[in-house]
Structures are given as structure tokens and as C-alpha cells.
């Protein structure tokens, strides 16, 4: 089962890595640092909601959240294998890593699909 999934997992890893590399720095800088520090004005609730109502914005957010989750899960799995030499625990590691990424993806899909 896992063997058959391997190409898909590597695809999600590289797609998510590209999304994280291209888009995360600007998102962290704006949402996580500049706005909370008050260096730039936060867009109001209504304007953010109206932006997210657009189907393209929701698709964008889905890709932005979900793919890096799978990227992180896949990379962290191999970090545990090699870095901490935990390869013998591969069954729980695989279940926890991809299980969390899948849960996050389902939750993201749920909130974005029902967004009104």
C-alpha cells in the first residue's frame, strides 16, 4: 500500500516544497510579523472575508495550506528515520505524519467549502 503511494507522496512533497518556498516567506512576513507588529495596517475583517469569498482565493488557500502539510509530513518522516534513527518505528511514524496532513487537509477543505 505504502509502496504504491510512494510516487504520489514524493509528488506532494515537491509540490508542497515549491509552494512553501515561493509563498510562505511573504505570508509569514505579512501575516506573522508586519501586521502583528503594527508596521502595516491590518486589512479589516470584512475586506478579508470578501477576498476569501472569491472561489479562486479559496482554491489558493486550500493549496497554500494543504500541500505544505504533506511536504512537511514527508520530510519530517525521513528526518525521524535518519536524524533520530527511528526507522524501526516506521508504522506509527507514517500513520502520524500523513494522518495529520490528511486531517489538516480535510479540515481546510471543510472550512473553505462552507465559507460564506
Amino acid at each position, binding site marked *: 500500500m505504502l509502496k504504491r503511494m510512494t510516487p504520489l507522496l514524493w509528488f506532494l512533497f515537491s509540490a508542497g516544497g515549491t509552494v512553501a518556498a515561493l509563498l*510562505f516567506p511573504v505570508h509569514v512576513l*505579512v501575516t506573522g510579523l508586519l501586521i502583528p507588529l503594527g508596521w502595516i495596517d491590518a486589512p479589516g475583517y470584512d475586506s478579508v472575508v470578501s477576498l476569501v469569498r472569491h472561489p479562486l482565493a479559496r482554491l489558493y488557500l486550500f493549496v497554500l495550506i494543504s500541500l505544505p502539510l504533506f511536504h512537511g509530513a514527508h520530510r519530517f518522516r525521513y528526518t525521524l528515520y535518519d536524524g533520530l534513527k527511528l526507522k524501526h518505528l516506521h508504522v506509527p511514524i507514517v500513520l502520524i505524519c500523513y494522518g495529520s496532513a490528511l486531517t489538516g487537509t480535510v479540515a481546510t477543505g471543510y472550512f473553505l467549502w462552507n465559507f460564506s
Partner: protein
Amino acid sequence: MTTEARYSLYHPKWYRHPVSVWWWLSSWRFTKFVLRELTSVPVAIFSLLTLWQVRSLANGPEAYARFEAWMSTPLAIALNLLIFVAVLFHAQTWFHLAPKAMEVRLSGKRVPDLLIIVSNYIGWLVVSAVVAWLWLGR
């Protein structure tokens, strides 16, 4: 003669050099590799923060205000600073690995690595500017 499997009495036992869990601290190259791989954790955390933002947007202005208030706490700022450094490190290593991971050919000739790396950075700057403009310039 027996038909049983034949065992050699002195089968060599392979010597395996014991490797410590901290093997990657012995050289900066290894440490950098493990740190690069560990950027997966801040990346996943930021995905979850964004998921929380979406959820609080869906739950109304009060929930969104709570999200914004938490993001302004010193703990959140420190966390986001750490995430920012990790994500920059990830982006830099990712852009530099791209030509090694995939060979691009144009009319039979291999595109030089440097050209791919530079175009990665240019694309990154353009995309970042577009996102910042969409997010703030309204």
C-alpha cells in the same frame, strides 16, 4: 549425507560501525542538512496557523479578533520570527536544489544551473509582490 540446509560454522558477522543519534553534529555540512530537513516543522506549523486564520474568519469577527490578538503576543511574534528564518532557509535551499533535482533542456542543450536558480529568485520576488499587493493594497 543429510538434506538439511548447510550452515557454515564460522559465518562472518558483518561489522557495523555504531552510529550515535547525534551523528549530524560532527560536521557543519551534516548539521545544515538536518536543520534543512527540520524546516518541515515550522512549515507545517505555519500551515496550521493559516488554517486557524481561515477557521476564525469563518467563525465571525470575534473569532478573527481573537486570532489577531494571539498573533500579537510576544510568544507568537517569536514563533513567527523563527518560522520566517526557517522558511527563508527552506526557500534558499529549495531554489538551489531545483537544477540538481530536474534537468531542463532547451533545444537539446542543458540549461545552466545558475540560470534556473536566478529565475527561481525572480519568480519568487514577483509572486511575493503580487501576494503582498493582493493582501494589503486594497
